[in-house]
């Protein structure tokens, strides 16, 4: 956070002068100043013999990287009074430029893996790479990962994971037919039956010779009805079994049922079952015939077997807008010319152009240069406009088609790239926000450490033994000053920074307590016993309170320990700035609320022996309702 503008920290601190006269409470003590001599020095960075020099301030702009933090002390070489890194100097040049200019560039001639390694060594996240080089970086990275992935896949396909359940095994067999011979057999058998079924559908409409006592030719389907019926049944049975097996084996059945392939499967086998149900019923035979048309959807089942079909379907889907536009412009032209032809041919006798919609057919046939000849204009005006129509048809159709074709490839690649960029942007923003929140979390950690720092030495020692908080102490001057600045702001406004989850929990509690408090001033609140229960135990009951290290044991011990202090009014008054120390991070929020209680409320403390409720210092007006933080 505030990485590139560390140099402006003095300005930000000076700007705090506006808060001082309005603050009602004393400001916290600024952090100790380290000796200044380090700040203005030139540092020598020796990277495999190539020496770089820079101000130490430059490096400290980004305190969460190796060079900006105390981690670089590990590389300090005393004999030569320089920092020695045994890394690649060419890539280091770019990393150092990042500190100087705030923008990280990716050199195109470098290997992506080496560059990534250097970045991770120096603690720089690649999302910071400037926009000029980011796309290139991501492309190279993706290629590299695909290459790695292909290698891995080839390996993985040969090596099956050892303990797969039967269900997983079946799913794997269905999705990757090359894995085992049974899968392959199944694959080819289903393919064969799909082909058989489609061919049967086609053949059964072919006229197959005449019956001896009829003149009319009948189709093969009627002649060999039983044979076709048996074939159809066999195919449908196989498809049904396959579909059910896939359904059982699918890891997520809901997702499987939503997928396009499963819908195609269902549509392919449904007509047969519906036909079984409603046979020999003349009224619905029309609908029944329509259903048979759906049997042709079986051909789409081939898309499981052919990757090309899948790609075609995807490109059509992605080009839908262009196709729609072509259709629209064609429609416009058709309507215009149809209208003109209709009015031009209105005069001639026995004209086929009986209405404008009838003229549509003529226009379409002419514009697509089909020219069936079933409708021709007879008047001279009609012929003139007819020729204009056919000429313009050539233009209207011929021009957009190459555009559409090139759009296919362009849109295909572009949509891929747009998706990538959007996904990249989301992850970039998420990561940057994460590092920002890391900064605010750093401040939360700093607060608890600082609070800890101000109190009993015994607790301090206990904490030192626990050893957890020492890590969080910001040794870097920038961080400590920044935290002091935020602390001043808190003191000015009498509010504290907390993170989102704590905020939501607090607000829920406050509303609950307000509800119970508004009923009666007596704390023995009737219907909501929770209104009285202590803040901590409520949190403890509610699972949603996600503290990093919340510990139920901890809560109860703190509660017990603090209760005697709460009961005595004088002790509370005596330590207005008393911040009892939580050993874990969450309680700092709880304890500091004691401080913010105005002295007026403390007079009513003695009447609130029974546990107290969460404090809401926002309502100074509700002074007759005791609010004590659950200590």
């Amino acid at each position: 956070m505030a990485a590139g503008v560390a140099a402006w920290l003095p300005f930000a601190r000076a700007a705090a002068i506006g808060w001082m006269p309005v603050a009602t409470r004393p400001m916290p003590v600024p952090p100790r100043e380290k000796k200044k001599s380090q700040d203005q020095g030139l540092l020598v960075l020796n990277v495999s013999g190539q020496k770089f020099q820079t101000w130490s301030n430059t490096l400290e702009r980004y305190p969460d990287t190796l060079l900006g933090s105390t981690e670089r002390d590990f590389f300090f070489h005393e004999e030569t009074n320089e920092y020695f890194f045994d890394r690649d100097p060419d890539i280091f040049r770019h990393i150092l430029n990042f500190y100087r200019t705030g923008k990280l560039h990716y050199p195109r001639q470098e290997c992506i893996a080496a560059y990534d390694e250097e970045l991770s060594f120096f603690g720089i996240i690649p999302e910071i790479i400037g926009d000029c080089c980011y796309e290139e970086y991501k492309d190279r990275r993706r290629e590299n990962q695909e290459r790695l992935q292909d290698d891995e896949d080839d390996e993985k396909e040969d090596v099956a994971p050892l303990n797969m359940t039967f269900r997983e095994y079946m799913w794997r067999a269905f999705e990757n037919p090359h894995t085992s011979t049974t899968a392959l057999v199944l694959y080819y058998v289903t393919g064969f039956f799909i082909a058989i079924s489609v061919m049967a559908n086609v053949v059964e409409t072919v006229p197959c010779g005449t019956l001896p006592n009829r003149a009319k030719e009948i189709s093969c389907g009627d002649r060999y009805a039983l044979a076709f019926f048996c074939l159809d049944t066999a195919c449908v049975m196989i498809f049904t079994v396959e579909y059910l097996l896939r359904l059982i084996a699918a890891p997520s059945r809901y997702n499987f049922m939503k997928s396009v392939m499963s819908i195609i499967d269902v549509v392919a086998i449904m007509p047969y079952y519906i036909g079984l149900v409603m046979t020999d019923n003349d009224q619905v035979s029309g609908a029944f015939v329509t259903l048979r048309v759906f049997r042709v959807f079986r051909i789409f089942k081939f898309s499981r077997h052919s990757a090309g079909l899948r790609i075609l379907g995807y490109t059509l889907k992605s080009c839908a807008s262009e196709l729609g536009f072509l259709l629209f412009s064609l429609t416009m032209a058709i309507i215009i010319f149809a209208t003109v032809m209709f009015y031009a041919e209105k005069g001639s006798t026995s004209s086929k152009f009986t209405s404008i919609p009838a003229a549509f057919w003529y226009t379409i046939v002419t514009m697509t240069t089909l020219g069936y000849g079933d409708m021709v204009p007879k008047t001279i005006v009609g012929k003139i406009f007819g020729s204009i129509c056919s000429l313009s048809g050539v233009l209207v159709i011929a021009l957009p088609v190459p555009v559409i074709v090139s759009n296919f490839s362009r849109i295909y690649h572009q949509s891929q790239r747009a998706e990538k960029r959007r996904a990249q942007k989301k992850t970039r923003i998420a990561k940057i926000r994460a590092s920002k929140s890391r900064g605010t979390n750093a401040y939360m950690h700093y607060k608890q450490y600082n609070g800890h720092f101000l109190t009993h030495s015994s607790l301090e020692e206990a904490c030192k033994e626990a050893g957890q908080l020492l890590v969080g102490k910001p040794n870097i001057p920038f961080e400590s000053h920044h935290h002091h600045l935020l602390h001043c702001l808190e003191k000015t406004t009498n509010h504290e920074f907390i993170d989102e989850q704590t905020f939501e929990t607090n607000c829920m509690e406050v509303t609950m307590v307000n509800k119970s408090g508004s009923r009666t001033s007596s704390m023995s609140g009737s219907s909501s016993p929770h209104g009285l229960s202590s803040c901590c135990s409520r949190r403890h009951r509610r699972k949603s309170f996600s503290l990093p290290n919340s510990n139920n044991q901890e809560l109860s011990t703190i509660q017990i320990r603090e209760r005697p202090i709460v009961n005595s009014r004088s002790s509370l008054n005596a330590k207005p700035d008393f911040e009892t120390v939580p050993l874990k991070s969450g309680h700092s929020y709880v304890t500091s609320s004691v401080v913010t209680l105005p002295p007026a409320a403390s007079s009513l403390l003695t009447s609130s022996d029974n546990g107290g409720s969460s404090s809401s210092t926002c309502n100074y007006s509700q002074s007759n309702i005791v609010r004590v933080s659950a200590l």
Partner: protein
Amino acid sequence: MSHCRKRCKRQLTKVFRLFYRFLTGTLEKDSVEDDFELSTVCHRPEGLDKLQEQTKFTKKELQVLYRGFKNECPCGVVNEETFKTIYSQFFPQGDSGAYAHFLFEAFDTNKNGSVSFEDFVFGLSIILRGTINDRLNWAFNLYDQNKDGCITKEEMMDIMKSIYDMMGKYTYPCMHEEAPREHVESFFQKMDRNNDGVVTIDEFIETCQKDENIMQSMQLFDNVI
């Protein structure tokens, strides 16, 4: 009449152009090259020695300040947008735009819409190296938006709200709507001696000098650089 015809023609061409664009499918205007007016306005500050005489900073301090300043604003002046961006990086949780605006107004003493290095350093010199009275004067200047010598409740309300905005949403205890107003009321109670509804510079300085907390906090700025 011809004026009307001209307008008609213009509208017609616009409609045709729109129609044409609709036909050709480019419904969005082609991205016109944004005129990136790289601010050719480059401002060089006065010499180091002169600045050292005029402010109370040492040479080294001025060097550090200038390097930081120039790094963020290579053209030598900072406009309000950049100012706000820089300031907001220190307060990620809240919205510091309003307070940054007031600061910008306070730093921009010649009211030309940009803060040069001299303005910047003069302001900092008063805050960080000035006497307590100078600092209080500067703070008063910050609050007094129209520079008429007195702070009204509205001005104070604006400032207070901007300070509270910097805290953001996630605070403990939950931020009240009325919190800034209450704070302003208590401020006026303290500062406004003759209860005329405004706080003049004398009342301000007098009250601040009597307040221990404020005096002490003013001394915080001694060691900032």
